[in-house]
């Protein structure tokens, strides 16, 4: 497609050059230009939003372990088991029982991220009087609105419109060469719409193919446009065509120069589920985001999507509640996010990216007769990243206090998005004002606040402890104890000063929590030793003296 003639000529005429911090900056004429330089924050941080499309069943994602019997009673045909091979995974053995939750058995990868201090769970997220319609509720999440409000724009659109004034006419430019937002797929959601004009984001599937395609087609668009309804639609098409042309080659270059690390992104669900949900839709999208970022993409917000969560029927298989559609979807989410996070770490991008999940609503606490669940209210949200304030926010939903079979809300979704904007993207007060989120600044959920500083990972240290053995120095019987946050294969052994294993104290699968082991060390020659606890998450060691 070709660019409009008058834009081509206008840019050479109306451009002035000046120096900013020693770097020449070309600024197109227009009121927004200087404002832009002054207004936008210079962080290179990125938010990746994962939409769980259809209304995710929060209660089967994070099972309230403190109320397991009630949980099972409310949804006997779909309740996940708390025993056996595929039982729920206790997320955290250090939290009070009111917060103790079990992840779906297919979310082991998220458990791993959590133990590494890279995940937060926020319980009971919704908004007041949450709407039972997929469409209206999704619009509300995208609009950043309350139940009784309606905007013609989305919260991300308003935020980015403030950060990049003069869009689209003055973009791309040197300070923002890329689309402010990218949605993977074929649509641009309401989230990225502004009050007027084309959205702040563009949607793409494969940048390379797109570039090749766009270079084959189109012609010159008209230069003058009637002031009429017809003219407005024409302008919409022409503006999008122009942005496509401008961004296509850039995105294609970024994509070509970018790469993924050797991480294996998941492709298929390894267990039983209907054919339609076996393939991981999310992984290739996240893989592309990582690759674009590695290529140098400066886009601020990515929106990816995984569908199929509207599980009115056959959410689980009748013969096994841990199998079926919902299990496959949660596996996809969990495994794709883990691969993405590992990829970012390997690519050196982990410091820049915050990832959040959201869904239009949760599902009803009481299941229906079709091995499924109907539309509900609040649900948990997951937040991922190296700088996330890891842990669990809020308590398990109170299953004895349902309203029409539904869960009560604990947090408004805007309390989370406001934190993403202010604490992560460093949005200014005026940006928050423009996003209409000013009411949520003071009570925002503190999603950011990394306790992972360098190699010292306080969050993990609290959850994987090797206690001092006693007595120490020891003559015969030594008492060892350690704490692990969840069932795993561990080994506890004694090494000599040269690092050779001299004695095994324990090996095998241990449950989450504190473990005590006594061992007779009388066979050991006197001297200094190290005892080491090895877990899949972390290794910890301490010194021991044998008398």
């Amino acid at each position: 497609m070709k660019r409009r003639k008058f834009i081509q000529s206008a840019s050479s005429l109306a451009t002035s050059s000046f120096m900013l911090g020693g770097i020449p900056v070309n600024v197109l004429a227009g009121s927004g230009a200087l404002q832009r330089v002054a207004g936008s924050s210079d962080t290179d941080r990125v938010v990746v939003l994962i939409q769980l499309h259809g209304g995710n069943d929060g209660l089967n994602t994070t099972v309230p372990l403190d109320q397991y019997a009630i949980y099972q009673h409310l949804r006997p045909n779909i309740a996940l088991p708390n025993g056996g091979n595929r039982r729920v995974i206790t997320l955290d053995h250090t939290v009070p029982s009111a917060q103790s939750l079990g992840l779906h058995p297919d979310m082991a990868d998220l458990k791993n991220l959590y133990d590494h201090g890279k995940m937060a769970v926020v319980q009971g997220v919704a908004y007041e009087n949450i709407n039972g319609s997929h469409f209206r509720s999704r619009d509300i999440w995208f609009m950043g609105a309350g139940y009784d409000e309606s905007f013609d724009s989305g919260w991300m659109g308003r935020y980015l419109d403030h950060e990049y004034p003069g869009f689209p006419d003055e973009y791309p430019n040197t300070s923002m060469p890329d689309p402010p937002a990218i949605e993977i797929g074929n649509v641009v959601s309401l989230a990225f719409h502004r009050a007027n004009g084309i959205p702040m984001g563009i949607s793409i599937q494969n940048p390379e193919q797109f570039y090749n395609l766009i270079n084959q087609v189109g012609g010159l668009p008209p230069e003058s446009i009637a002031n009429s309804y017809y003219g407005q639609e024409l302008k919409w098409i022409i503006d999008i065509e122009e942005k496509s042309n401008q961004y296509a080659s850039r995105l294609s270059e970024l994509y070509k120069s970018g790469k993924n690390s050797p991480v294996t992104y998941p492709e298929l669900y390894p267990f039983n589920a209907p054919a339609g949900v076996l393939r991981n839709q999310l992984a290739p999208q996240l893989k592309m985001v990582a690759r674009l970022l590695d290529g140098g993409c400066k886009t601020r917000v990515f929106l990816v999507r995984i569908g199929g969560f509207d599980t009115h029927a056959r959410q689980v298989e009748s013969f096994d509640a841990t199998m079926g559609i919902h299990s496959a979807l949660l596996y996809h989410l969990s495994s794709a996010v883990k691969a993405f996070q590992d990829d970012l770490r390997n690519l050196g991008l982990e410091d820049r990216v915050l990832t959040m999940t959201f869904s239009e609503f949760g599902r009803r606490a009481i299941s229906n007769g079709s091995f499924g669940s109907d539309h509900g209210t609040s649900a948990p949200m997951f937040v991922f990243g190296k700088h996330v304030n890891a842990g669990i926010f809020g308590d398990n939903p109170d299953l004895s206090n349902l309203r029409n079979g539904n869960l009560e809300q604990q947090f408004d979704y805007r309390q989370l998005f406001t934190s993403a904007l202010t604490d992560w993207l460093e949005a200014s007060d005026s940006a928050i004002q423009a996003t209409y989120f000013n009411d949520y600044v003071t009570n925002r959920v503190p999603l950011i606040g990394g306790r992972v500083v360098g190699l010292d990972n306080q969050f993990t240290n609290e959850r994987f402890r090797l206690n001092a053995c006693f007595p120490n120095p020891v003559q015969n019987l030594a008492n060892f104890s350690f704490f692990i946050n969840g069932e795993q294969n561990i080994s506890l052994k004694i090494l000599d000063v040269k690092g050779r294993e001299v004695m095994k104290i324990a090996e095998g699968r241990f449950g989450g929590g504190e473990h005590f082991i006594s061992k007779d060390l009388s066979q050991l020659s006197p001297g200094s030793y190290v005892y080491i606890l090895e877990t899949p998450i972390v290794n910890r060691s301490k010194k021991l003296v044998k008398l």
Partner: protein
Amino acid sequence: MPSLLPIDNGPLGRKRAAHLLRRTTFGPSGKDIDRYAQLNIQQALDQLFTPTARPLPPLDIATGAAWVNPNTAGANSPEWQLIEYTLSWWTDRFMRGEDRIHARLIWYLHTHYPIIKERIPRSTALYHHMMLLWHYALGNYKELAVKMCYDNAMLWHLDGHLNEKDRPNENFAREFFELFTVGKGMQTGPDNYTTFDENDVREAARVLTGFGIDQSFSNVEPETGIAMGILKGDGQMAQRHDAGIKNFSAAFGNVAIAPPQGGVINGVATKEATMQELHDFADMVFAQPATAAFLARKLYRFFVYYEISDTVERDIITPLAEQLINSDYQIIPILRRLLSSRHFFDDDNATEEDDVTGAIIKSPVELMASAIHFFDAEFPDSDGDLTRFYQAHAFLRGQMQLQGLDLFEPFDVNGYDAYHQMPAFNRNWITANTLAHRYKFGLDIVNGIKPMNDNDLIKIDVVRFVNQNISQPEEAIILAREIIDHLLPNEITEERFMYFYREILLDTLSEINWRFEWRAYKQSQDDTAVRIQLEKFISALLQSPEFQLC
């Protein structure tokens, strides 16, 4: 102010005829436009609303015969293949260029009742669903809504077949309110959406309990000839229906619905009583002004313009909604009134700014069908080689998907974004990706589409088209004018015309050169030179922003 009064009764003329046909068909040919231009509005509408004949069912390649009628021998092809055939059969009529509104209304009804084929395992169910749309497109939209409550495909699509006494499934009930009838008003409090509330959803689900899928497709209703779902149970009893009283909110006037006197035996409702409940329920829902207004707005957005101003709401939507209730949801009078109105033809005020002509972005179906029909593209039909016929349609469906329309597979149960997603509505068809693919189709159909690397499946023969449709092809300016005036949805500036005419068609050479080339072709029958220029010209028009609109 926006007026529903009819326009004058003189001949429509080209501009009005073209506007009417672009909005009510899948794109007219130049000849269609010229023919309608001679008619006055009432004559034009008489023609437009003439029903089309009941279509013959789709054919299986393996047997060369139909398979959808119950009690006929089974088809040889696997079910997934038959579903593909059924979709092809359904879209084929859109590509054939009928000059009637029937096909466009079928498309409208599909956007109103979008169903997802992945949830429907049987092609025959899909076929009967499509026949329901065909049967009621020009009929009573309330009756259609009743049928949708126990249409086999819909029972699958929104889990209605799982909705039973003591184990309700609300999926269909909710969407029946929100997507199909009263729509969702502003939320006024917990669980209350003005037009209905959460309790209404539960009560409606109870009314709708007990229906099941009839996989033998033998429950053919005499008045339509269409196979429907059944009520589960033996003999006269609707065993799985909830026979209790269902209480609706103030939004429905606190109506209670229950089986009629004598309709319950030993706590079980009879089938007759259950059907009576269903009809009572439809009467209650369709008596609401909200239902009529919701439908009127959808029709307005589909046929006129996607933004509804306060004055349009007051002067167009409200009177049409009243008429819908008064006519008991017979659709023809309402549409005739709207499509003959001064508002539709922008004859209600002097300002051009609110001219709706050309202000709707075509769906991918309309985009491709309008190109195929206008230029009379070669396109295999089902009377010839069935394999090629289905290949051509498979290609078109692939194109639709690339252009953002996953036919019978919308991402959501509310269907394709263009028909409901505020604020952009039909603008949702246009994204970086989809626009490029729309243009690419304009390029490919001129070059010839041959997905199987053999003969062209779909191709515009530009020389044949010009020979058959243009009054004086050797005059380049007449040729360009006649094509552009009939093809593009609104007038273009002289400058823009000169771009297509001089830069593309003439390649900046003179019109004398064209005359020379045309005559040379006529003498030698070697059309190489004129074909190259015509292909560039028509391809450029199909890849223009203007052609995206209707």
